[in-house]
């Protein structure tokens, strides 16, 4: 049994899901629902980010409330590089690298902070990033945002002899990267580093006694997670051809945490499901509710969040190891 690829053990349902994901746009393309392709593409970007955040929140157990900042850094890097005439396939790794460097510099002084102190510092950095993007007019054009359409230097996104421009093109590009991120995540989870993360999540002091270098391993996870966000940000900027600070608010960071937690912290299929639910439910409600009740959809979404949290506190598709531990704890309580 190949334990390292546990996520691929029961392979056929996965291929079914991938097949469905490939076929969906073909069905939607010619119908009046073709706008859904764009929404599904955005969902894919959320999935990439949620998988990244899952490393920090799910594997290591640290709360990060400013993750959107790194999506923003990726997006702005892409916008600036593209306007400077750098091609997409060079810019994308550059975005990832730049985002990781930012994360490294920010992480270095703050990773010794524990629990909610770390959460508030990440929140602070998230807000600072947004405010700087909003006010540094000479670089970011402030609240008006940066457009890639007004600059002649921007090169089209080429892949072999195709040019990617439509929503469907980007949908497939994003699908490819979602699959890549799932593979990277599951390999990370089952690596030496991943097991060390779980040890840190379960008990920092015990992990330290086992000889795990806490700050260094937290840093590895912190920086790795930023790579996901930088990548998603880069793709977003090139797809949208426009970036503005308004896309990267604190509320978006909170929604990312929500995706990870309601899906099931540390569980890769759970996180994908969580991202899909949080991104798609408000959209689905828009269609289900008539025009009269459309403004109720956020309220209904809030109710749904509370219900999920109360009835499935471990997440909709929980991590096996985590839920087993929770049950053990309940049993221990029950027997005493």
């Amino acid at each position, binding site marked *: 049994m190949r334990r390292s690829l546990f996520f691929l053990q029961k392979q056929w349902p996965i291929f079914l899901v991938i097949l469905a994901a490939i076929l969906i746009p073909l069905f939607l393309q010619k119908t009046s629902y073709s706008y859904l392709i764009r929404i599904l593409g955005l969902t894919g970007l959320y999935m990439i980010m949620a998988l990244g955040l899952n490393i920090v*929140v799910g594997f290591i157990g640290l*709360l990060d409330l400013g993750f959107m900042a790194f999506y923003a850094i990726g997006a702005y890097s892409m916008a600036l590089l593209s306007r400077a005439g750098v091609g997409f396939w060079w810019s994308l790794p550059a975005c990832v690298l730049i985002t990781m460097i930012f994360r490294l510099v920010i992480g270095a*002084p*703050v990773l*010794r*902070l*524990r629990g*909610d*102190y770390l*959460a*508030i*510092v990440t*929140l*602070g*950095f998230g*807000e*600072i990033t947004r*405010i*700087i993007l*909003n*006010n540094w007019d000479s670089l970011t054009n402030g609240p008006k945002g940066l457009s890639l359409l007004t600059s002649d230097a921007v090169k089209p996104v080429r892949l072999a002899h195709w040019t990617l421009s439509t929503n469907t093109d980007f949908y497939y590009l994003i699908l490819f990267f979602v699959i890549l991120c799932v593979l990277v995540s599951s390999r990370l989870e089952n690596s030496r580093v991943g097991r060390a993360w779980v040890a840190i999540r379960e*008990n*920092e*002091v*015990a992990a330290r006694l086992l000889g795990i270098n806490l700050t260094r391993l937290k840093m590895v996870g912190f920086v790795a997670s930023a790579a996901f966000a930088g990548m998603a940000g880069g793709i977003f900027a090139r797809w949208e051809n426009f970036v503005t600070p308004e896309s990267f608010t*604190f509320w978006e960071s*909170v929604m990312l*945490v*929500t995706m990870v*937690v*309601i899906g099931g*912290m540390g569980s890769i299929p759970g996180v994908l499901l969580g991202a899909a639910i949080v991104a798609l439910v408000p959209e689905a409600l828009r269609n289900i509710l008539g025009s009269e009740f459309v*403004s*109720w959809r*956020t*309220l209904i*979404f*809030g*109710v*749904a*969040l*509370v*219900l*999920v*949290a*109360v009835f499935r*506190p*471990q997440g909709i598709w929980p991590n096996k190891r*985590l839920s087993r531990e*929770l049950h053990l*704890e*309940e049993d221990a*309580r029950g027997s005493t």
Partner: protein
Amino acid sequence: MANLIEQLLNGLTLGSIYALVALGYTMVYGILLMINFAHSEIFMAGAFLGWAALIITRSLPGPWGILIAFVVGMLGCGILAVGIEKAAYAPLRRAPRLAPLISAIGVSIILQNAVFLWRNDFLAFPLVFPQVQIPVGSVQLSLIQLVILGTSVSLMILLWLFVNKTRLGQAMRACSQDREAAELVGIPVDRIISMTFFIGAVLGGAAGILFSLYYGSIKYNMGFVPGMKAFTAAVLGGIGNVPGAMLGGVLLGSAEAMGTAFLPESDWKDVFAFGILILILIFRPRGILGEKTADKV
């Protein structure tokens, strides 16, 4: 110089409001180790309840209107918070730590959108207090600033007395030290938790009304920014620590005012406030008044 002192007074006024809200965050955190995200919406609910009460009691003479508004806003928020606690947080006492956070985010969305569906635009908050300036030495202090400082300081003194001098306060402190041990010595922990939510929300509701009296307008999403600042203040002082929240609020308000004095563009003052927070936490990882506790396995 006089200008600087006036800025500092502005900062203190705002800071005392942050401090009132921060107390709600910090007391709940002290007992449940949970970030009560919905607290900023309690602040907003206080403002709306106060507004409704003021509109209804328009015809009453003298200070009755505003007094009733305070009573309605504070009690209303307290009851609301206890209800939220029972419905959305109490079932999650033994759940993984982030589950109550998600529940709180959900409650926050519900409250904001419920108010949004009712009134989705800016509403003018009646400016009850005449806009007069009171000279104090060489600086000018407005009447409303005096009211805000007076109300919040007296509320904080009351809270301090309650926490430190009464048996209920003692029980509350016991719960925040060790919930299981408190249960063992016969403290009704669930009731103490409800009470903590009630008190935090009463202070938050009062802060909402004071804030609206200061700025003169309210909106369904008005709680977000002050709520975030107040949470920052609570962490700054050392989360879980009552005097720390007061100190953190006042410090954050003053830091912001100083930021405005030195950096003319208003947006940068938030960078200033968060920058200070990050610096303080790097050098004092548990906040200013937070105690250093050893990690236990």
